[in-house]
């Protein structure tokens, strides 16, 4: 190539600048800086408490819960869709996993730990495929079909349990998933890290990932380029279903019970996390790192405000303000970027 010496520092700088200008990692960088600033602020206001291992574990569990949901959500949102079912799905899958393990279901004896988890994840994937089928073949808006599941899953969870939680005995091996720690880091957080690495790899390195972005950027172009646009979207909805199932399992383990009352409005928190992390609800834009950082910002803020004795009503209000600021900033930045 006719390029200058690739090690020339000005070339390196201009390339770096080019990458930043192109938006590769730029938005995540902003969000990351905001995250660090928030951590510093809350550390300063709550010296000694904020960085305690127990407190960090609380934050990490929050980030794991909404981070996993947000990763599923970001896949769907990149393709130009949305998944509103994930909140109720965490409740239903939590109830299902407890029910399978403790009571048995479908006329079966109670099942073991691993089979129960696998069945619930398969069920969650099937629900996701159901959404994908309606979006791609029946051409129902994603908003509507997942809203339907949001209602059905909430109803089913309440019906199965008749409103009562299905409680695990303390010491049940299942509880390790949500309550256990390894070197003072919650097991849940490791699950998030594994999920994030796998999905990051898929989105950034594989043809499937590139096709997910292409579908969100221009569905018709992707189609005439030979991308199997329906399969790609089916995958994303199924993945989002699996993430909701995984979160439901982790929460059931964390709470020591399958209960129909968890997960309320979690879909909106997950969507908020993706948006704070720079995902565009119009599709075509979004990253795993952004989604996790969005969840992390919400987790740190929520925790920091608790430590500062901010009223819980005000906490929700402040998170709303953060969401609006993030979206407004992003919109302006994008307009200038053109």
């Amino acid at each position: 190539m006719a390029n200058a010496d690739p090690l020339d520092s000005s070339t390196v700088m201009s390339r770096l600048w080019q990458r930043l200008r192109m938006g590769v990692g730029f938005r995540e960088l902003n969000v990351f800086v905001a995250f660090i600033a928030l951590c510093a602020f809350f550390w300063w206001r709550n010296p000694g408490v904020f960085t305690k291992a127990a407190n960090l574990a609380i934050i990490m569990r929050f980030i794991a819960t909404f981070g996993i949901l947000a990763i599923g959500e970001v896949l769907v949102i990149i393709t130009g869709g949305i998944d509103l079912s994930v909140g109720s799905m965490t409740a239903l899958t939590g109830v299902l996993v407890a029910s399978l393990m403790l009571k048995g279901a479908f006329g079966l004896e109670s099942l073991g730990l691993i089979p129960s988890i696998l069945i619930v994840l398969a069920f969650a994937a099937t629900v996701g495929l159901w959404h994908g089928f309606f979006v791609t073949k029946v051409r129902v808006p994603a908003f509507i079909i997942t809203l339907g599941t949001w209602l059905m899953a909430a109803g089913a969870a309440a019906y199965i349990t008749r409103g009562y939680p299905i409680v695990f005995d303390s010491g049940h091996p299942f509880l390790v998933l949500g309550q256990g720690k390894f070197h003072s880091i919650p097991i849940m957080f490791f699950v998030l890290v594994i999920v994030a690495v796998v999905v990051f790899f898929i989105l950034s390195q594989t043809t499937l990932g590139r096709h997910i972005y292409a579908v969100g950027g221009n569905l018709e172009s992707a189609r005439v380029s030979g991308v199997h646009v329906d399969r790609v979207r089916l995958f994303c909805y199924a993945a989002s279903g699996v993430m909701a199932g995984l979160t439901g399992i982790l929460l059931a383990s964390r709470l020591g019970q399958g209960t129909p009352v968890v997960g309320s409005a979690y879909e909106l928190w997950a969507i908020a996390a993706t948006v704070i992390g720079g995902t565009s609800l119009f599709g075509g834009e979004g990253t795993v790192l952004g989604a996790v950082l969005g969840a992390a910002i919400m987790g740190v803020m929520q925790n920091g405000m608790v430590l500062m004795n901010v009223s819980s009503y005000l906490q929700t209000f402040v998170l709303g303000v953060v969401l609006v600021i993030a979206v407004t900033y992003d919109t302006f930045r994008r307009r200038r970027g053109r």
Partner: protein
Amino acid sequence: MSGDTPIVEMRGITKSFGAVQALQGVDLSLAHAEVLGLVGDNAAGKSTLMKVLSGAYHPDAGEILIEGQEIHMGGPEDARRLGIEMVYQDFALADNLDVASNIFLGREIVRLNLGLLKVMNKGRMEEEARRSMDELKVDLASVRFRVERLSGGQRQAVAIGRATAFDAKVLIMDEPTAALSVAAIGQVLDLIRELSRQGTSVIMISHRLEDILEVANRVIVLRHGRKVADRPIKGQSLAEFRENVVACMVGAVDDFGPRH
């Protein structure tokens, strides 16, 4: 080369959209290295016919032969595998992806195939995209630029690069010169001549009859979903050519119509 067998032969292609009969039994044949102009009024069926050939539409009836072999296309990827490439009028690019990603969209170079997951070789795709852009003499600082940042001419170059980077046997271009400056039109026409010289067959849809007269060997005129003329182009002045073609386009002349 397979002698006189046309590279493409479409027979009796019919296609309806609801009550609208877009194509009513159209025949088209294309020889090796031939440049064919396809003209007709708006809604005459040109783009529809080409989308059938490029696999984007399934015809209701009719058959398609490639080098004498009847083929059935399940989608655009089948057409591309057969060496049929189309440059769409709107370029069909994904604005949120970079140049290299667009050029290789749907046929990424794979480094490692894990079944469902195929790991891309991004470096090689960028190199080859760079080469393709250089061959087309496009002034483009980086193939990592997102397409949304490019000018109209650069976007078209990416669309053409995507079609020509893979040794196309048949290149379909839908209004390639409609939105271009005079200099850029000259470049596109030069490119078509060059591709033809290398053995690629080109079908060019255009309203600009002067462009067709300049590069095409033959012209087909469609009207209301039917072929009304299929004539070689030789030694005509632009005025004569325009008069002949327009007569067919408006229905004053119909080489294939029912005898009166």
